[in-house]
């Protein structure tokens, strides 16, 4: 398994939308390298024949009937908004397009 370096951390921080200073990147790279090293045995623990478990207690087909429930008022929706305008959440310009 690959070691984790400063450039990796910088890339991951971009993906995770967390700004990091140069000093933080260095420190985080060092700490993560130790952690990643310590978890590497995991990839060798189970053979190909072992299925993955994503839910500890298996359930299937948990559904909701299509019946309308409660809704928020505009005030409730926006009650915690850092910024709002005319009933909508206001955010600075979006440069990057989806």
């Amino acid at each position, binding site marked *: 398994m690959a070691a984790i370096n400063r450039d990796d951390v910088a890339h991951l921080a971009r993906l995770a939308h967390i700004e990091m200073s140069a000093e933080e990147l260095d420190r985080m790279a060092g700490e993560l390298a130790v952690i990643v090293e310590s978890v590497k045995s995991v990839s060798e623990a189970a053979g190909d024949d072992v299925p993955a478990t994503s839910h500890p207690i298996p359930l*299937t087909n948990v*559904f909701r009937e*299509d*019946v*309308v429930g409660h*809704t928020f008022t505009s005030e409730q929706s926006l009650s915690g908004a850092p910024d709002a305008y005319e009933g909508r959440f*206001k955010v600075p310009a*979006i440069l990057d397009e989806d």
Partner: protein
Amino acid sequence: MSTDATLSFEEAMEKYDPVLGFEVHVELNTKTKMFSSAPNVFGDEPNTNVNEVDLGMPGVLPVVNKTAIESSIKIGLALNCKIAETCRFARKNYFYPDTPKNFQTSQYDEPIAYDGYLDIELSDGTVFRVEIERAHMEEDAGKLTHMGGAAGRIQGADYSLVDYNRSGVPLVEIVTKPIQGAGSRAPELAKAYVAAVREIVKNLGVSDAKMERGNVRCDANVSLRPHGRERFGIRSETKNVNSLRAVEHAVRYEIQRHAAVLDSGEPVIQETRHWHEDTRSTTSGRAKSDADDYRYFPEPDLVPIVASREWVEELRATLPEPPAERRKRLQADWGYSDLEFRDVVNAGVMDEIEETIAAGATATVARKWWMGEIVGRAKNADVDPGQLGVKPETIVELNKMVEAGKINNKMAAEVLDGVLAGEGTPAEIVEKRGLAVVSDDGPLLEAIDAALAAQPDVADKIRGGKVQAIGAIVGAVMKATRGQADAGRVRELILERLGVEG
């Protein structure tokens, strides 16, 4: 906005072979959202068709809407897909302000339906099979409005406003396999394919299927390769092409643009393109980048969906008649010739004609109005005929007026323009514009008497039994009333006047 170079379509076709692919997003018309009990309603006050789940509040959990699952299975069945015995949702992780959790809950490697096909009939009757890769479930995002920049565009905007009412609306994304061999029919096939999908989901009753409202949205992938080459070229993905005509135009434009790029020796860039209806062209969106690492993983807050064969068969039994069979039945019911019916289908007014007949018109009348009057107007307005806003009731009312002799066909066309201009109901417009055929017998009788007096020999002939001579009198009366009289009534009155049985 820079303009890209294009080749003529004909030249592009001479040199290259197009390969298409479509991702069509269908908004389901369930009462509630995919994962929350908030209402799935279009166009209310912002941020009021939401609860904590749709806003991605801390601590919330999703619960799957059963009807959405059933609708998705129905879509899969109608697309001749296999229905997965078990499938799951995953999280697609990316940050965007219209995505309240900063991940979209979507199916990824386990779609509910896969490996289907759709037979598409082109305008000349050729049937082209489009292979369906998968149909998977996901949730819609909120709506962003960009403020301060030019005309609501994202570029140059000062700030954006977010309304999460649409957040969590159930979507089914239908993905085709690469479509090869369409050649110069590619733009036509593109339009016909999207029209067919729209028809299917509408017919199933699982979506309102209004493209102008975004109920059906199309992303069109286009790539070109030199004739005879196996390997696909690099594709572009034109996003949110939201009318049938635009699908046709966008595919045609991209073929022409790609051809020009390839001719210049440059590589095509794999990127998102944006369709602009005003210029009928696309502009560059965003190139694929490392930001596209979506870090998919199975959604741990949801459990797998197991579609038992019994459940699937139960749903299959509820499916309405498939569109192709429906077309056959409608053609027979309406008595249209093959050519007439194909014209109706190609013009995209079959549903409209059906609705008009349901509202009380005969098949002939309905076709006369849609094909004779409305399709042309739609073409002039550059919209799909169904989007012009003609209600079936309007046609029925207009036709009744014509049949009752209140107005003639020429006037009816004028009234239709009035209706489309928003001047009111047909009756109101007839009144306002003073269009009524003269039906008060008083003035008519005066004109008839004058005409009979002016042509006594003709009057005698009619009296003598030569009723066919009546045309000369009728013509004179119509002339005198400047065409406002009902010719049938005039004839009756003349015969009455002369004491002859008609």
